[in-house]
């Protein structure tokens, strides 16, 4: 029953239950807005979004694995491809491209041309430091941590800051080997 690794998330995307895109976008906008009101500091909002994303990612990985039938990725390169082509498609309905690999193959960029989260969004002058989509970087970090990859995810380009695309830099810090969880004296 060797599961075939899907090269795109189209099939899965067609099968999962979806919500209205505008409802999704507006709900996310409302969350960010509320965070800005509650926390006041833009920096704090970035942190909070990242944390929320992390908590989502920790759970989302299981749904991703169960629905997409992906077993194991051979290396980080394959992992990045799968996130870009299958993961983003499955949960956001868009695909990203993977570029800018460094020499060691431990960090790369995920470029999103199209981002459903930012429809109707404009950053006011007071929020220029806000990474509006910071939740995404948290999701990726959380999900990868559950498959034993410690990563660092940062924004390089952001359309809301006037760039031409969204670019996420994903850096693999280390792969954590499986450990025997019990101590001998327990």
């Amino acid at each position: 029953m060797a599961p075939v690794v899907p090269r795109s998330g189209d099939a899965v995307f067609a099968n999962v239950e979806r919500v209205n895109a505008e409802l999704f976008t507006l709900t996310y906008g409302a969350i960010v807005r509320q965070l800005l009101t509650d926390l006041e500091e833009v920096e704090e909002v970035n942190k909070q979004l990242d944390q929320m994303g992390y908590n989502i990612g920790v759970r989302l990985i299981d749904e991703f694995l169960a629905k997409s039938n992906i077993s194991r990725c051979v290396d980080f390169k394959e992992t990045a491809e799968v996130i870009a082509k299958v993961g983003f498609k499955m949960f956001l309905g868009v695909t990203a491209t993977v570029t800018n690999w460094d020499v060691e193959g431990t960090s790369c960029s995920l470029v999103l041309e199209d981002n459903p989260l930012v429809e109707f969004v404009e950053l006011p002058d007071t929020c220029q430091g806000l990474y509006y989509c910071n939740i995404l970087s948290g999701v990726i970090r959380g999900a990868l941590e559950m498959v034993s990859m410690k990563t660092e995810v940062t924004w390089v380009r952001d359309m809301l800051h006037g760039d031409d695309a969204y670019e996420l830099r994903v850096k693999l810090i280390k792969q954590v080997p499986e450990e025997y969880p019990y101590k001998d004296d327990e």
Partner: protein
Amino acid sequence: MQFFGGSAAAEMTPSPAAPPGTATGLAGNNANMLYIFNRNGVCLLYREWHRPLHTLDAQQDQKLMFGLLFSLRSFTAKMDPTSVDKGNLGVPLLPGQGCSFYSFRTNTYKLSFMESPSGIKLILVTHPKTGDLRDALRYMYNLYVEYVVKNPLYVPGSPIKYANRFILYAIR
């Protein structure tokens, strides 16, 4: 069967009612025990249907089971004649390294095992004549996602408390 999470899971996975090779499938009182572990060795769920003999207390039993699977995976990877990338026996494996076993059989029971890359381990102990249960285990993993992971009240890494509905589907 309809899930609240959409029909995807039901369509994607074959019905567990009749895995090939069995007359009764899981339904006919075939299953003895079920364990679910997470990556940290926490037993998220344990259920038994038919287990006349208990030799250890539950905690010891679960710990032994986890230890057995952990060592067996490392052992099977070491014995793998087809792959160069073996690692050393006893040295922790990186995810994706080596191979993984999916069942073993004794004269009195059969143990079927599935591990997801996120470290969720599903173990089903059944009658020795049960056929291939990998599809059934995959199906149960889907149930785990629908009923446990998607439950906002569930704290990741804690034992599954309100497992009744989950279990009802699993043993059908």
